[in-house]
Structure formats: C-alpha cells, structure tokens
C-alpha cells in the first residue's frame, strides 16, 4: 500500500544502515532530494548501486556513507571526473570503498533480470574487456542451443530503490516521461521503492496509454518534492542546470570546500529548498 508522506518520513521508514540501495535516473530525473535526505539522516555502510554515479554519489561517497559502489560510468557527464569518488578510490579518503564495476549493458541487463525475477542476466557483452579480469561477478555461460559463449552477471536486487518522477495521481500511480532510463527496472527489481514527484494530480486522464506508469501497488512511499531532481532535469518542468555541474568540478576538487558546500546546501537545508533552485530553469509560460 503506497503512502503519501514527507520525504524525511519516507526515507526514515525505508532506508536503514547497511542497505543495498539504488538512486536511479539516467542523466534525467536523478533523485537528488532523496539522496540529500539520506545524507542528512546519516545513513551508513550502504552499498550504492547506480549506472552513472554522477554528483549524487560523489556527495554520498565524499560523506563516507558508502562501503561499496556498483556502477558503470563514474564521470560528471559533459564535464569530466568525479573528484570525491577519485579521492576514495585513489587515496581511500574518507574511507575504503569497495567497487563492483560493469558496463552499461551489464548493469541494464542486471536490473532487467532483477525486475524479471531471474537469478542472472545473459547477453552478448564484455568480449575482450578488462573488466572480466577484475570483476568476479562477470562470468560466462554457453548457449544450450548454439554453443555461443555469452556474458552472465547476477541480477541486481536492491533492498530499496529511490527515483524521482514527474507526477503521481491520487491513487499513487507514478508517471515517468522523456528519457525513461532504467527507473522502471530499478523499481521493479527492488524490495521497496520510494518516489519523489514534482506534483500530485487528481488522475491521469489524457495521458497516452503507452506512457511509463508504475502502478501504485509497486511503490511504498511517495513524497512531493518540486525541483527534487535538481541539478538534473525533469522533462516538461525544468531544464538541466549545466552551470551547477560545472561548478561541482571546483567544489569537489578540495576536501574542505566540499565539506563546506555540503554543510550549507545539504546538512543545513530542507527538501523545500529544491523548488527555489529550479525557478530560473522553468520555461516561461
């Protein structure tokens, strides 16, 4: 049964220390507000899953919340490297973080297997790739029909998945539009799913029948957080804040400037601040 509540309550009830958790969104609808709430509530020893860790995991890794990272692209899209993640992997600061690295194809297939209730995913991939030598979870199976060797990776089954979506209706069904990424698979693969939304509408009358809708009974909790994907974007609501992605490269370059930024913009902030961050990014009506 889906519950409409505050973000603080949704997070407190669904994420515990030691969980394996995915905050998904493929460059679009990245659930920043939910991740910031996890940082404020001080969750520890998390295994963080995300195809493109992006700023949101750079922040969580920099705050020392992650014991392990499962990922496929550790960059700041369009800008460069993730400097807090680099500090963790190169210098073990602020702590040692174990990594399990895949390709996008590997992660996408693994989420899909999780959503489908299969123990592993099979696909044509990783041929000649060095990752096969450093990640013991990348293995091989032989096709029983053709004899072709194929890659196999274990299904991803997060304890909890957080996503941000455009809207929910009163029943708690959730609509995702635009670049839909991996969110549907990440939600259905997880034991629990929490969604932040831009708004709640009465019903989905007029929505195209083929739109990506997650039925209310697949979701545990919904919190309304306008702007909750900032600095990524919400298709139809606000644009990507490219300047913030560039600025992050400087903020995260230094341990002290990172801590100061996190205190001001995350630890001492509330979810309501996200609405003000996207004001200048909303298209003039």
């Amino acid at each position, binding site marked *: 049964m889906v519950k409409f509540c505050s973000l603080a309550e949704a997070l407190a009830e669904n994420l515990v220390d030691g969980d394996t958790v995915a905050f998904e969104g*493929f*460059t*679009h609808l990245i659930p920043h507000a939910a991740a910031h709430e996890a940082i404020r509530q001080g969750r520890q020893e998390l295994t963080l899953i995300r*195809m*493109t860790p992006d700023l949101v995991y750079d922040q969580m890794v920099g705050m020392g919340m992650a014991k392990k990272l499962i*990922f*496929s*692209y*550790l*960059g700041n*899209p*369009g800008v460069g*490297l*993730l400097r807090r*993640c*680099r500090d963790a*992997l*190169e210098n073990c600061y602020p702590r040692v973080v174990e990594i399990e*690295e895949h*390709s*996008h*194809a590997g992660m*996408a*297939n693994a989420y*899909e297997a999780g959503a489908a209730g299969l123990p592993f995913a099979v*696909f*044509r*991939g*990783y*041929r*000649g*790739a*060095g*990752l096969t030598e*450093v990640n013991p979870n990348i293995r091989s199976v032989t096709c029983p029909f053709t004899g*072709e*060797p194929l890659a196999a990776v274990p299904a991803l089954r997060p304890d909890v998945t957080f996503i941000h979506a455009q809207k929910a209706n009163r029943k708690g069904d959730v609509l995702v539009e*635009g*670049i*839909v*990424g*991996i969110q*549907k*698979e990440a939600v259905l693969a997880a034991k629990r799913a929490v969604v932040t939304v831009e708004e709640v509408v009465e019903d989905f009358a007029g929505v195209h029948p083929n739109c990506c809708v997650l039925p209310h009974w697949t979701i545990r909790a919904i919190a309304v957080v306008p702007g909750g994907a900032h600095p990524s*974007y*919400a*298709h*139809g*609501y*606000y*644009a*990507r*804040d*490219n*300047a913030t*992605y*560039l600025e992050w490269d400087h903020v995260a370059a230094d341990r002290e400037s990172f801590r100061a930024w996190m205190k001001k913009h995350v630890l001492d902030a509330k979810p309501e601040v996200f609405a003000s961050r996207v004001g200048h*990014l*909303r*298209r003039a009506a």
Partner: protein
Amino acid sequence: MSGPGFTPEEMMTIAAARALSSHDVCLVGIGAPSAACNIARLTHAPGITLIYESGTIGTAPEVPLSIGDGELCETAVTTVSVPEMFRYWLQEGRITVGFLSAAQLDRHGNINTTVIGDYHHPKTRLPGGGGAPEIATSCGEVFITMKQSLRGMVEKIDFFTSFGHGDGGDARAKLGITTKGPTLLVTDLVTKAFTVASLHPGVTRDAVQATCGWKVVFADPLEETPPPTVRELTTLRDLKARTEAAHRGEKVAAGTGGA
C-alpha cells in the same frame, strides 16, 4: 588566429565528421564524438541517424552537451529505455558506426578510459567504460577521435576498457567478434586507418611521430586533408558557441534541454 584560419582541434572535429554519411546509423559516444557527429548531420550527412546511449534514437540536438539532455529526447524519432537500447538496438547489430573517444589508445585501436596505473591501486581513476565495451564490439565498425599526445597514444594501454584489435591480426575473430572494430582514427594532426592516410594542412611527419607513443606508419602516397570549408567551420563554431552558452546557464536560441 594566425595561419590557416582554423585550429587543429577544429580540423579534427571536421575531418571526423566527414567520415560519416547519410546512410549511417551512428551511436554517439560522450565527448568529442558528439560534436563531430552533429557537424556531419548539419552539413553533408542530413540523413544520418544519431543514437545516444540514453535511449534517444534519431536525435538532432542543438547543444549536445551530455548524453542525456532533454533536447536529445525532444528532437528524437523515439526514446527507448536503457535496457532496450543496449539489447534490441546495439546488441542486435542495428548500428553501423560507433564513435568513441579515448584517454589512452594503442596502435591496434584498444581503448582505455578506466584507469591510469593499477586497477586496484589507481594513480588516476577515470570514469570507466559506460556503454563503450559493447559499442566497440557490437557496432558494424568503430571510429575513434582524440587529440594526439605521448600520454594518450601509447605502446601499451593500462587497461582494456574497450577491445579494438587486441594484439593485431585475427584477435577479434578469435574472441568470436564478427564486427570490424576500429577502422578509422582522426586526430588533431592526421586521418588514418591506423596507417596514416592523410596529414592535416600544415602538419609534418615529425610532428605526428613526436606526439605518438608507437612507431607511426605513413601511407604512400600520403595525402593532405582538405582544409575545413567555410560552411563546416561556421557550423562547428555555432555549435560550440551554443554549447558554451548552455554551460553558462544562458538561454539558447533553439531551446534548452528538458523543460
């Protein structure tokens, strides 16, 4: 600027763009390839299908800043989920060209974007492969574009992120890979199919060897790359100006991503 009226980097992007045709279905890698692919679309190859790994098929962005910007979706013929992109479109072999960049590259077209130094104790941890390991083996062929440097073009790469031709010869076939792999490398100095076919205007053989960590082989006869046309240069500079404006958070004429 003095001299030829264009920079080596502009020449690189334009020479890379020229390798694409209207018949191509091209998976666009992050970074330098995006500019080249869009210059092709905006000049001599208007019929090209550009695909980004975020799931956008047949897209026509004004500002190709990242691989997931809203504008990619708004201008696309269709947008599919990430698993569908990698399973139905890339893995099945529907894509003719994969366009990649590299942090480190060897003479056989093997690419490293994962790590400098040891994987478990990295000197520099780079972003990693993303979609590239499968782009390199599932696309019909692979074009690579990168600026030349002794640090980037090396005898031996530190990590095999994306497989090219291994140690050379039939290394791909031995792994059961049926696609061509890297067939073209365009740098700021030359265009080559791993044997240098064409020097960009004003570039010497010595300059090419001085910035490449392996023994460079030149074709005979060796051609000179035609310089950028006015249309190519104008298109490229307009694209860069729009991208820089978007970086600063300014409104861009054709509409910013997302909203």
